[in-house]
């Protein structure tokens, strides 16, 4: 059975303990940040920040509500980073999505392809603006030794559940039912079916887009064959319209005129 994580955002207090635990366990350096007008700090995920509590303000009935989302790699079953990676560095390992740092060439394709904007390029050494791509590794070292991921272990609010994916889906559904019955009619279990099933799922109290998540995340290469076809058809149009008309037909007309003249 596949392991997974369920994060109940209705319980999250945005203490950012998970953020710190992630940095500590994975030995990630701190980043210099600045006040950019939000408690969300650092402002976004980076090669050194694999876990980030995002803050979203929801204004409803002249009241402002905060929506917290403990964002990280969601370990998709249909992972766009895996499908676009040209070297096989990004790969599915069991239920998890990992980037092999020794294979990665730092092309940045996964950075562009991820529907959640998760993988980030390392700042390059010296003047170079980018290095290899980094992201959450689901604490693969802990999980493969029967330990709970660092973020889940540290959460003081009980927002995290780590376990078998099937059981977590059942648990998430009961949580959603309870939320719907208690003043959150828009509650939703995010990740059950998205992209073939995510291995980090969220219990949301509002629509996904209000948390900065795509409502319908898209597999980057979902329509790649159609895109190839679109280019090939256009090449056909270019061949047929100007070139066939101007070069082939002219040639035929000239040949006909020559025959007529004889």
């Amino acid at each position, binding site marked *: 059975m596949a392991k997974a994580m369920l994060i109940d955002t209705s319980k999250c207090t945005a203490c950012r303990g998970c953020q710190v635990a992630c940095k500590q366990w994975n030995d990630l350096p701190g980043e210099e940040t600045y006040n950019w007008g939000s408690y969300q700090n650092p402002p976004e995920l980076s090669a050194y920040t694999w876990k980030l509590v995002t803050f979203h303000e929801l204004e409803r009935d002249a009241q402002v509500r905060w929506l917290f989302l403990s964002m990280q790699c969601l370990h998709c*079953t*249909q992972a*766009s980073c*895996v*499908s*676009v990676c*040209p*070297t*096989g*560095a990004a790969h*599915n*390992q069991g239920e998890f999505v990992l980037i*092999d740092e*020794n*294979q*990665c*060439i*730092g*092309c*940045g*394709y996964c*950075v*562009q*392809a*991820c529907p959640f*904007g998760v993988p980030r390029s390392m700042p390059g050494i010296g003047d*170079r*603006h980018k*290095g*290899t*791509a980094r992201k959450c590794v689901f604490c693969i070292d802990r999980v493969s030794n029967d330990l709970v991921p660092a973020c889940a272990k540290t959460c003081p609010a009980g927002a995290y559940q780590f376990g078998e994916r099937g059981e977590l889906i059942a648990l998430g559904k009961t949580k959603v039912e309870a939320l719907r019955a208690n003043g959150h009619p828009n509650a939703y279990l995010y990740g059950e079916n998205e992209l*073939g099933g995510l291995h980090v799922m969220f219990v949301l109290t509002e629509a996904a887009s209000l948390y900065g998540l795509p409502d319908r*995340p*898209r597999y*980057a*290469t*979902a*329509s*790649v064959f*159609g*895109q*190839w076809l*679109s*280019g*090939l*058809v*256009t*090449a056909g*149009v*270019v*061949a047929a*319209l*100007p*070139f*066939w*008309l*101007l*070069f*082939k037909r*002219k040639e035929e007309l000239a040949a006909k005129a020559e025959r007529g003249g004889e």
Partner: protein
Amino acid sequence: MTWEWQVAIDLWLAGLAGGAYFTAFLADRFSGGKHEEWVRIATYLGVPAALIGSLVLAMDLGEQFRAWHLFIGLSPSSWQVVSTYGAASLRTWPPFLNLYPISPMSLGSWILLFWSLIGVALIALWFAKAFESVEEANFFGTVASALRPFLPALNVLKWIAFALSVLLITYTGVLLSATNKGLWANAFPLPALFVASASLTGIAAILIIMSTAIGPSLRTLFGTAGEATTGEAVATLGKAGAVVILIEIVALALYLLWIGLLSGPAGAQAIGVLLSGSLAVPFWGGVVVLGLLIPLALEANVLRTRKEPPAIVLTASALCVLLGGFILRMVVVIGGQL
């Protein structure tokens, strides 16, 4: 920003290289082999252009010295990935080779590699042909006679290069559309736009060479191929270019409509940046006016009248097209990440 001008340069040069070969080959075939000279020019020009583009792109990698990982995977993790998860299962074959058909960058790298290799082979064979009469035992004569047995392969190689050139110009658009950025994602007209633009810049590159002194000097250097290109033939190529401009305008309009109307809020926002935001000046001034409308106006004379246009008009419009093609790549690459 993860992708900057280096990516735009590569998309532009790869498009120019593939587009020049693609259009030259079409003109040559449809006219019954009259324009082999153009095919040669496209190859002489395209192979270095494609290689320079690849080099710029390799320099832009986070780990430049691992660029060979695009082709060969020696680490077990790259070829022992056994997965039941959709596209990833394509990754187990062939062993050691990093060929992932689902990844446009992987496929594109292989296309670029083979197109360049075949281009080099074509240049070598044309060289052998040009020195056919040299039987003396000097260096060129020896190399030429060593290559001569391979001359029958010339035609087959030209066809393979043609097929690869179509894939090459398509890849530049597919690369961007297989992502999740507002301006690129899921955009079927984007490969169409880039194919049209690549064909156009390819025609422009050939036109510049044929309508300036470079053409005749090439003829002196490499000997004749097919019939001598007349001013009328160059004018016909210019007319073909004007029709391709019209095709590109249609593709551009389709692309903007598609992203603006069908790609959700992210797409609508990206279109705003392009049409009236921070990229409006390069988009309207560079892509639309300089790259499409001015060359079209200049070549409208060619379309309307039968007389041969002065070389300066063709050269000027071709230069506008080349510049506009680069600005298009730049605007799309940068705009997708804003």
